Protein backbone atom coordinates (compact mmCIF):
# COMPACT_ATOMS: atom_id res chain seq x y z
CA UNK A 1 0.00 0.00 0.00
CA UNK A 2 2.92 2.31 0.77
CA UNK A 3 4.35 1.89 -2.74
CA UNK A 4 0.97 2.86 -4.17
CA UNK A 5 1.01 6.18 -2.31
CA UNK A 6 4.68 6.69 -3.15
CA UNK A 7 3.96 6.31 -6.86
CA UNK A 8 1.00 8.71 -6.63
CA UNK A 9 3.14 11.24 -4.76
CA UNK A 10 5.94 11.11 -7.32
CA UNK A 11 3.37 11.44 -10.11
CA UNK A 12 1.95 14.57 -8.48
CA UNK A 13 5.47 15.99 -8.09
CA UNK A 14 6.00 15.50 -11.84
CA UNK A 15 2.64 17.14 -12.59
CA UNK A 16 3.69 20.21 -10.58
CA UNK A 17 6.42 20.85 -13.16
CA UNK A 18 3.87 20.85 -16.01
CA UNK A 19 1.86 23.49 -14.16
CA UNK A 20 5.10 25.37 -13.41
CA UNK A 21 5.53 25.81 -17.17
CA UNK A 22 2.25 27.74 -17.21
CA UNK A 23 3.47 29.90 -14.31
CA UNK A 24 6.72 30.84 -16.06
CA UNK A 25 5.65 31.16 -19.71
CA UNK A 26 1.88 31.47 -19.39
CA UNK A 27 0.38 34.27 -21.46
CA UNK A 28 -1.12 36.84 -19.16
CA UNK A 29 -1.27 37.26 -15.43
CA UNK A 30 -4.51 35.35 -14.86
CA UNK A 31 -3.04 32.12 -16.21
CA UNK A 32 -0.18 32.56 -13.78
CA UNK A 33 -2.46 33.12 -10.79
CA UNK A 34 -4.60 30.10 -11.65
CA UNK A 35 -1.48 27.96 -12.10
CA UNK A 36 -0.04 29.08 -8.74
CA UNK A 37 -3.34 28.18 -7.10
CA UNK A 38 -3.25 24.74 -8.77
CA UNK A 39 0.31 24.17 -7.53
CA UNK A 40 -0.86 25.01 -4.01
CA UNK A 41 -3.64 22.42 -4.24
CA UNK A 42 -1.20 19.78 -5.50
CA UNK A 43 1.21 20.59 -2.66
CA UNK A 44 -1.61 20.05 -0.18
CA UNK A 45 -2.24 16.55 -1.51
CA UNK A 46 1.50 15.80 -1.55
CA UNK A 47 1.70 16.79 2.13
CA UNK A 48 -1.18 14.42 2.94
CA UNK A 49 0.46 11.57 1.01
CA UNK A 50 3.70 12.19 2.91
CA UNK A 51 1.65 11.92 6.11
CA UNK A 52 0.30 8.53 5.03
CA UNK A 53 3.81 7.28 4.13
CA UNK A 54 5.25 8.40 7.49
CA UNK A 55 2.21 7.02 9.40
CA UNK A 56 1.60 10.46 11.00
CA UNK A 57 -1.52 11.51 9.07
CA UNK A 58 -3.03 13.20 12.18
CA UNK A 59 -0.11 15.66 12.26
CA UNK A 60 -0.01 16.35 8.53
CA UNK A 61 -3.73 17.10 8.25
CA UNK A 62 -3.21 20.19 10.44
CA UNK A 63 -0.38 21.46 8.23
CA UNK A 64 -2.33 20.87 5.04
CA UNK A 65 -5.35 22.78 6.35
CA UNK A 66 -3.20 25.81 7.16
CA UNK A 67 -1.62 25.53 3.71
CA UNK A 68 -5.03 25.49 2.00
CA UNK A 69 -6.13 28.51 4.02
CA UNK A 70 -3.05 30.58 3.21
CA UNK A 71 -3.28 29.55 -0.46
CA UNK A 72 -6.86 30.84 -0.58
CA UNK A 73 -5.97 34.14 1.06
CA UNK A 74 -2.91 34.58 -1.17
CA UNK A 75 -4.87 33.98 -4.37
CA UNK A 76 -7.57 36.38 -3.20
CA UNK A 77 -5.00 39.07 -2.40
CA UNK A 78 -3.32 38.70 -5.81
CA UNK A 79 -6.69 38.90 -7.59
CA UNK A 80 -7.66 41.96 -5.55
CA UNK A 81 -4.35 43.64 -6.37
CA UNK A 82 -4.91 43.14 -10.09
CA UNK A 83 -8.58 44.19 -9.99
CA UNK A 84 -7.68 47.72 -8.98
CA UNK A 85 -4.40 47.95 -10.90
CA UNK A 86 -0.97 47.67 -9.39
CA UNK A 87 0.01 51.31 -9.22
CA UNK A 88 -3.13 52.73 -7.64
CA UNK A 89 -3.20 50.14 -4.80
Amino acid at each position, binding site marked *: MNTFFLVIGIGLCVLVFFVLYRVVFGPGVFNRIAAISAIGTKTLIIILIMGIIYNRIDMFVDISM*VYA*LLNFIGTL*AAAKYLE*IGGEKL
Partner: protein
Amino acid sequence: MIRKTDDIIIRTVARILVPFIQIYALYVIMHGHYSPGGGFQGGVILGASIVLLLITHGLVETKKKIPEKAIALFSSMGVFIYAGIGVLCLLLFGNFLDYGKLSVILNIPPAAARAMGILGVEIGVSITVMAVMISIFTSISTAEDHSKYDKEH
Protein backbone atom coordinates in the same frame (compact mmCIF):
# COMPACT_ATOMS: atom_id res chain seq x y z
CA MET B 1 -5.90 46.43 -1.93
CA ILE B 2 -7.52 47.91 1.12
CA ARG B 3 -10.79 49.05 -0.45
CA LYS B 4 -14.09 47.26 -0.21
CA THR B 5 -14.85 44.72 -2.97
CA ASP B 6 -18.15 44.76 -4.79
CA ASP B 7 -18.34 41.01 -5.29
CA ILE B 8 -21.02 39.55 -3.03
CA ILE B 9 -19.65 36.00 -3.30
CA ILE B 10 -16.23 36.91 -1.96
CA ARG B 11 -17.69 39.06 0.80
CA THR B 12 -20.12 36.36 1.95
CA VAL B 13 -17.54 33.56 1.81
CA ALA B 14 -15.04 35.63 3.79
CA ARG B 15 -17.65 36.58 6.39
CA ILE B 16 -18.64 32.93 6.91
CA LEU B 17 -15.04 31.68 6.89
CA VAL B 18 -13.50 34.12 9.39
CA PRO B 19 -14.97 32.59 12.62
CA PHE B 20 -13.93 29.07 11.56
CA ILE B 21 -10.38 30.26 10.85
CA GLN B 22 -10.23 31.82 14.31
CA ILE B 23 -11.54 28.64 15.98
CA TYR B 24 -8.87 26.68 14.09
CA ALA B 25 -6.22 29.15 15.26
CA LEU B 26 -7.30 28.64 18.87
CA TYR B 27 -7.03 24.87 18.32
CA VAL B 28 -3.50 25.29 16.95
CA ILE B 29 -2.52 27.38 20.00
CA MET B 30 -4.11 25.12 22.61
CA HIS B 31 -3.05 21.83 21.01
CA GLY B 32 0.49 23.02 20.26
CA HIS B 33 2.10 20.55 22.65
CA TYR B 34 0.83 17.45 20.86
CA SER B 35 0.67 18.48 17.21
CA PRO B 36 2.45 20.91 14.89
CA GLY B 37 1.76 24.46 15.89
CA GLY B 38 2.06 26.64 18.94
CA GLY B 39 1.99 30.31 19.79
CA PHE B 40 3.59 31.77 16.69
CA GLN B 41 1.73 29.62 14.17
CA GLY B 42 -1.63 30.17 15.85
CA GLY B 43 -0.95 33.89 15.95
CA VAL B 44 -0.19 33.91 12.24
CA ILE B 45 -3.48 32.13 11.50
CA LEU B 46 -5.38 34.61 13.70
CA GLY B 47 -3.66 37.44 11.83
CA ALA B 48 -4.54 35.82 8.49
CA SER B 49 -8.23 35.83 9.42
CA ILE B 50 -8.11 39.58 10.03
CA VAL B 51 -6.11 40.10 6.82
CA LEU B 52 -8.87 38.23 4.96
CA LEU B 53 -11.39 40.63 6.50
CA LEU B 54 -9.20 43.58 5.47
CA ILE B 55 -8.89 42.58 1.81
CA THR B 56 -12.58 41.76 1.43
CA HIS B 57 -14.35 44.33 3.60
CA GLY B 58 -11.90 47.22 3.40
CA LEU B 59 -9.96 49.20 5.97
CA VAL B 60 -12.81 51.35 7.27
CA GLU B 61 -15.14 48.49 8.12
CA THR B 62 -12.36 46.47 9.76
CA LYS B 63 -11.28 49.46 11.83
CA LYS B 64 -14.77 49.53 13.36
CA LYS B 65 -14.31 45.93 14.53
CA ILE B 66 -10.64 46.23 15.57
CA PRO B 67 -9.51 49.82 16.19
CA GLU B 68 -5.85 50.62 15.68
CA LYS B 69 -5.47 51.54 19.34
CA ALA B 70 -6.59 48.01 20.23
CA ILE B 71 -4.01 46.53 17.85
CA ALA B 72 -1.23 48.59 19.45
CA LEU B 73 -2.50 47.59 22.91
CA PHE B 74 -2.62 43.89 21.96
CA SER B 75 0.90 43.92 20.54
CA SER B 76 2.30 45.14 23.86
CA MET B 77 -0.11 43.11 26.00
CA GLY B 78 1.21 39.81 24.64
CA VAL B 79 4.78 40.74 25.53
CA PHE B 80 3.51 41.79 28.95
CA ILE B 81 1.89 38.37 29.50
CA TYR B 82 5.09 36.62 28.42
CA ALA B 83 7.40 38.71 30.59
CA GLY B 84 4.86 38.82 33.42
CA ILE B 85 4.80 35.03 33.76
CA GLY B 86 8.60 35.02 33.68
CA VAL B 87 8.89 37.68 36.39
CA LEU B 88 6.21 35.97 38.47
CA CYS B 89 8.45 32.91 38.59
CA LEU B 90 11.34 35.18 39.64
CA LEU B 91 9.22 36.59 42.49
CA LEU B 92 8.47 33.04 43.67
CA PHE B 93 12.24 32.43 44.15
CA GLY B 94 12.77 30.54 40.87
CA ASN B 95 14.59 31.31 37.65
CA PHE B 96 13.10 33.40 34.85
CA LEU B 97 10.28 31.34 33.21
CA ASP B 98 10.72 28.55 35.78
CA TYR B 99 7.11 27.40 35.55
CA GLY B 100 7.36 24.80 38.29
CA LYS B 101 7.23 27.54 40.93
CA LEU B 102 3.77 28.58 39.75
CA SER B 103 2.33 25.52 41.54
CA VAL B 104 2.17 27.60 44.75
CA ILE B 105 -0.22 30.13 43.19
CA LEU B 106 -2.27 27.75 41.01
CA ASN B 107 -2.49 25.13 43.79
CA ILE B 108 -1.67 22.20 41.45
CA PRO B 109 1.34 19.84 41.26
CA PRO B 110 4.53 21.26 39.64
CA ALA B 111 4.20 19.12 36.49
CA ALA B 112 0.72 20.50 35.79
CA ALA B 113 1.94 24.00 36.63
CA ARG B 114 4.62 23.69 33.94
CA ALA B 115 2.00 22.81 31.33
CA MET B 116 -0.17 25.75 32.37
CA GLY B 117 2.81 28.12 32.37
CA ILE B 118 3.84 27.14 28.86
CA LEU B 119 0.23 27.57 27.70
CA GLY B 120 0.12 31.08 29.19
CA VAL B 121 3.36 32.04 27.46
CA GLU B 122 2.07 30.70 24.13
CA ILE B 123 -1.13 32.72 24.47
CA GLY B 124 0.99 35.84 25.01
CA VAL B 125 3.12 35.06 21.95
CA SER B 126 0.05 34.47 19.78
CA ILE B 127 -1.58 37.78 20.79
CA THR B 128 1.57 39.73 19.94
CA VAL B 129 2.12 37.94 16.63
CA MET B 130 -1.50 38.54 15.58
CA ALA B 131 -1.34 42.27 16.33
CA VAL B 132 2.03 42.76 14.66
CA MET B 133 0.91 40.87 11.52
CA ILE B 134 -2.17 43.12 11.19
CA SER B 135 -0.21 46.30 11.76
CA ILE B 136 2.48 45.28 9.21
CA PHE B 137 -0.25 44.55 6.63
CA THR B 138 -2.08 47.85 7.16
CA SER B 139 1.18 49.84 7.18
CA ILE B 140 2.38 48.33 3.89
CA SER B 141 -0.94 48.48 2.04
CA THR B 142 -1.73 52.09 3.01
CA ALA B 143 1.90 53.31 2.85
CA GLU B 144 1.37 54.50 6.47
CA ASP B 145 -1.05 57.20 5.36
CA HIS B 146 -4.49 56.21 6.60
CA SER B 147 -6.06 59.65 6.25
CA LYS B 148 -6.31 59.35 2.45
CA TYR B 149 -8.34 56.15 2.79
CA ASP B 150 -10.62 57.53 5.47
CA LYS B 151 -11.72 60.43 3.25
CA GLU B 152 -12.76 58.21 0.35
CA HIS B 153 -15.64 56.66 2.24
